[in-house]
């Protein structure tokens, strides 16, 4: 690749020294980020492993009681995984909110929406929305 060759050509001993020092300084920052990721994932991995096992329990359940137990533990392990990764849920199931395209998927078949009902909560990490909440049109109030 020509660009790469060019940069190698320009490199002299002094520049190498500076770049080397810069790399030496920068390396631990990358390593700290990796270690933080490792720490954050270590516990999440355990919870995810539990979730996978409970998925098998769910699929192999012989009766409704066993299926319900597996689903309870699967949900708990998944929620645990999310917490360990710093994920939070957006909105409350069934709640009616003003439509916000950053946080909500538009309700299916709706041309425009002013308010929506949360059908499935979204997921965020800090301020970053990873998945918008799925919504549906608000339920009409039954006449008195």
């Amino acid at each position, binding site marked *: 690749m020509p660009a790469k060759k060019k940069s190698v050509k320009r490199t002299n001993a002094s520049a190498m020294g500076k770049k080397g020092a810069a790399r030496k*300084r920068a390396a*631990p920052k990358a390593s*700290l*980020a990796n270690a933080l990721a490792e720490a954050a994932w270590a516990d999440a991995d355990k*919870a995810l492993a539990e979730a996978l096992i409970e998925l098998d329990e769910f699929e192999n359940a012989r009766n409704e009681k066993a299926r319900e137990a597996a689903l309870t533990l699967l949900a708990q392990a998944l929620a645990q995984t999310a917490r360990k990764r*710093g994920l939070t849920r957006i909105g409350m199931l069934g709640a009616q909110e003003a439509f916000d395209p950053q946080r909500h998927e538009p309700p299916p078949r709706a041309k425009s929406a002013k308010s929506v009902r949360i059908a499935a909560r979204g997921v965020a990490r800090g301020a970053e929305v990873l998945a918008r909440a799925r919504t549906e049109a608000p339920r009409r109030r039954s006449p008195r």
Partner: protein
Amino acid sequence: MSAWTLCIDFGTAFSKAAAAPSDLRFDPANVRPLQLNPQPSGNPFLLDSAVFVDDARILFGRSALDRASSMAGRKRVALQSFKTLLSAADLERALDIKAPLSIDPHRAFCMRDLIVLYLAYLLAAIERARAADACIPARINLRYAAPAWQGGDSDALHAVVAGLFGEAEALRMRLGDALLADEGIDLALAATALPRAADEARPRAMGLIHEAAAAAAYTSIGLDESGSHLIVVDMGAGTTDMAVLMRADHQMHELADARVTFNQAGDFLDRLIADRALKSASWAKSTAQKTALWGDLMRAMPDLKAAMFAEGRASRRYERRLINVSLRDIERDQDFKAFLKELQAAYAHCVAVARGDALLRENASIEAVAVGGGAGAPFIQELISGATKRGPRVTPRPATPGWAHSEVFGGNLAPVFPQLAIAIGGALAPDNMLAAGGAA
């Protein structure tokens, strides 16, 4: 080169350390938690607080716990919970007590010896981690965080702890990296080195920062504006502490009248949850069954508690049976009700003290933050979010500060922040927030 500060947090189960520059404008990229644990698995930032006296060797950290676990049938245990020991009313006397037979079957060591050995191991782990991080200079100011026990004399505690660190540093110089070996160190070598290190030791120049002040530091740092008063509710494993800090002239002062410490905290909740689960397991009739179930619940307790705090209920599969416990069950418990009532009264007292002081100052505002393992408990969050009837409003702050979500950490500091919070806050806090001691 700028001056850096390193703070050690002795958690009940783990030790943690973090470093930060003292004289630079705050930059999240300069917050450096130390990777104390070199084990390939597990959290690299958490060093197990444990010493195990084996037949011919002394083991530290994870090796100590693994060995103790393999010898549990012989009633052998590792020494842990150094924090509990440091809270003893007469610390010097507590340190001179011989370690119990279950910890030291040779009757060769007193508690002071074992703590000095652990601190030497911790200092060696810190030095290894510091040397691996080129951002942190070799010369660094040292601090440690401790709770401000009610009625405790910070200067007296600090003199003893600085002395222990001095002995530990002398011991580390003698034993070197052998302290970090998985197989630990030779018992006879340790027994010989300890008195020599004690003779050579000089008290270590270091600072003591109260955990509440460390929490205030990480909560308010990086903010353009933060409250003049901060109420800190810290529910750890052994104690729940409340403190009110007041900021004036860029200094943080504690309003001593507000401080409250309860002996009920995370361990108390663990017992309530396990007890409730045990009662619901009507099939567990024999003592052996109950003991085995209790042990299983206690091992799973951090996850159970996290689920209960977040979802209001927690479940556990045990021998193909499902055990359910709900937060409502716990809230019905008479002991819990009594604890909550006292907690609410103590918090109201803290608010009153903060408000009384705030009214004397211009532009005063009060904030509250929950820290420690119990920070996420709904009843703690309700406490700090509770509406106040009159006077300056109390604004709750999140347990994990906004800067912990900074992109420089790739989104990975926030999930582990609660575990590292006190070490980080202690490293970030200015010298004027120290309870005793100072920079080296």
